[in-house]
């Protein structure tokens, strides 16, 4: 009996030593998997998982939970992941308002947070934090690129429109920061608005020569369908969010030819991106979106840091994350001092390839672009 107990204890001890040696990292992913915004969260999750599968990585324990796009639920899940799952790293949040609810408290509890999508300006500036890394972009960035490219296209009288919430204000501010022409009009719509008849009538009457919109998810689909039926024939410029693989099949032909900006594109010419797009199609039977590419990069960043440091040594692990010593599907990737990406933003056009609507790169808006909020970050 005694011997048996001794053996059991020994086995347990050996077992726990074995586990410590593998230094397993627990990653808690809080993302939107149900409701109208589910497409974005599903793509981030699938991209992340694909990176782990391709690396054959078994030292990451990934715990995924659905936040249903509700801030209070996201906060609860984050607490649970920190307390009961003992997560070392949190990631996954899609929406800026959810990120603002979760990130500040999580990073204050010595948990790393790696954002695969939301990039609210507050977290890039005064409220930046050593444990917070943004692997996607700061919110303004792609809209700034759209403003920059509107100049190059010679637009002089653009009508601009976004939903009335923080990311919408960021979008219009970002666009106006670089756009040099006149504004034919500026409108805020309601979040989740489904009918744009009144706005389209305004655009028609405004004498605009072009339109800039930021209408992510279903809002963009609704607008484009109604715009197509309105007989108003003006060029549209936008950030990639309203015109990526999650919504393009639903918008249909109306999206053809729309100019949009993104830090990534399925045809971006580098070796890893080719592999990524092919493997994603293979695994999930659809084209990846920019969200999927961001999930993929986030996972690879974590893997690269794990090779250099143990997650229990937070300072070393933080340094390893900061080094960003991984190959990104975007090509080059580097963190600015506020731990947001310095990156190239491309101009893309919606085209049809083999009967599938997708994006092709037609130019570059910015090289090595970084956000303006970093100046307010003392880190």
């Amino acid at each position: 009996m005694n011997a048996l107990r001794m053996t059991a204890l020994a086995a347990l001890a050996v077992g726990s030593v074995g586990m410590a040696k593998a230094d397993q990292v627990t990653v808690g992913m809080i993302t939107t998997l149900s409701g109208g915004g589910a497409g974005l969260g599903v793509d981030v999750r699938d991209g992340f998982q694909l990176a782990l599968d391709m690396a054959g990585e078994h030292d990451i324990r990934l715990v995924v939970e659905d936040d249903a796009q509700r801030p209070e639920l996201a906060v609860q899940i984050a607490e649970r992941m920190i307390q009961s799952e003992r997560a070392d790293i949190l990631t996954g949040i899609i929406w800026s308002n959810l990120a603002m609810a979760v990130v500040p408290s999580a990073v204050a509890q010595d948990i790393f947070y790696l954002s695969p999508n939301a990039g609210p300006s507050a977290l890039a500036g005064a409220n930046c934090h050593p444990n917070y890394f943004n692997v996607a972009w700061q919110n303004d960035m792609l809209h700034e690129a759209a403003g920059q490219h509107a100049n190059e296209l010679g637009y002089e009288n653009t009508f601009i429109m976004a939903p009335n919430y923080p990311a919408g204000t960021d979008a219009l501010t970002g666009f106006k920061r670089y756009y040099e022409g006149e504004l034919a009009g500026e409108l805020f719509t309601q979040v989740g608005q489904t009918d744009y008849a009144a706005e389209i009538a305004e655009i028609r009457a405004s004498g605009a020569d072009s339109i800039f919109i930021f209408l992510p998810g279903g809002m963009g689909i609704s607008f484009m369908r109604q715009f197509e039926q309105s007989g108003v024939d003006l060029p549209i410029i936008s950030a990639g969010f309203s015109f990526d693989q999650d919504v393009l099949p639903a918008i249909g032909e109306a999206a053809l030819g729309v100019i949009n900006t993104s830090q990534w594109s399925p045809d971006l010419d580098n070796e890893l991106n080719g592999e990524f797009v092919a493997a994603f199609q293979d695994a999930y039977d659809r084209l990846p979106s920019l969200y999927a590419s961001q999930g993929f990069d986030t996972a690879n960043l974590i893997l690269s840091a794990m090779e250099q440091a143990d997650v229990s040594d937070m300072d070393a692990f933080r340094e390893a994350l900061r080094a960003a010593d991984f190959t990104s599907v975007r090509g080059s990737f580097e963190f600015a001092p506020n731990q947001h990406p310095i990156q190239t933003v491309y101009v893309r056009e919606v085209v049809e390839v083999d009967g599938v609507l997708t994006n092709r790169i037609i130019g570059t808006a910015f090289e090595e672009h970084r956000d303006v909020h970093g100046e307010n970050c003392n880190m």
Partner: protein
Amino acid sequence: MSLALVLEQLLNGVQFGLMLFLMSAGLTLVFGVMGLINLAHGSLYMIGAFLCAAIAAATGNFFIGLMAGIAAAAAAGALIEILVIRRLYARDHLDQVLATFALILILSEGVRMIFGPFPLYLTVPSVLRGTVNLGIVDYSLYRLALIGFGIAVALGLWALIAKTRLGIRIRAGESDREMIAALGVNIRVLYTVVFALGAALAGLAGALVGAIQSVQVGMGEPVLILAFVVIVIGGIGSIKGAMVGALLVGVIDTMGRFLLPRLFATIFDASAAAGTGAALASMLIYLLMALVLIFRPKGLFPAHG
């Protein structure tokens, strides 16, 4: 601000109102006849849109999809009434709200499991594409057709309730439930039929609107909130009230979004005017509802006068 623009916005408001009417007619009918608050009405709207999109994609014909959407919503409505709602008539409103809220979650996830998390493609049928010239303004043919559809359904509903035997029973059910049962009308069947009728109207609205909106999980809830505003303004249980309320909400909401930013632009700079105008415009219909509740607590056309 030209006359053409004002006219276009008025048409937009009427069109929006008529689609709201299709939603609120079913909601108010169910409340009037059975005394039931059905939060899952928006899910039936979603089912109509999804089935229409799926069948239209499979057959290549929008109108077959439309029929399928209406039929699916009606069938889902009948099934839900028999399985769940029937047990709730005797309960208080809180239990009904709880149970039908659960139905929202179940139906949303069910639709997501079947159709996936990405929005579906559904577009306007080719015969209704493009614009038509109305003298001073070019207006979307499909939106014009929606106005026509809305008016036709409203007339049909009026005829059904005012002229048919089923209509007599519905009206009788509204005024005195016990008496109509005592007179030998099969109240269980009547309830199922009324619920399925309301569901069909929601499915019709979902399918029609789905062609110019995003067909996605959760699309019904924003409309549901507006539909509740409509029936509170119109008087709960009254079809006439739903019509007037829907048109009021549609026109006031659209004109508010159109005029308020202009009004503020005379005081503030463009950005601030756009922000404040949009914020106030989104409150306008709720202000209207509050005013109606203050002066006519039972709505404009109380059903049980």
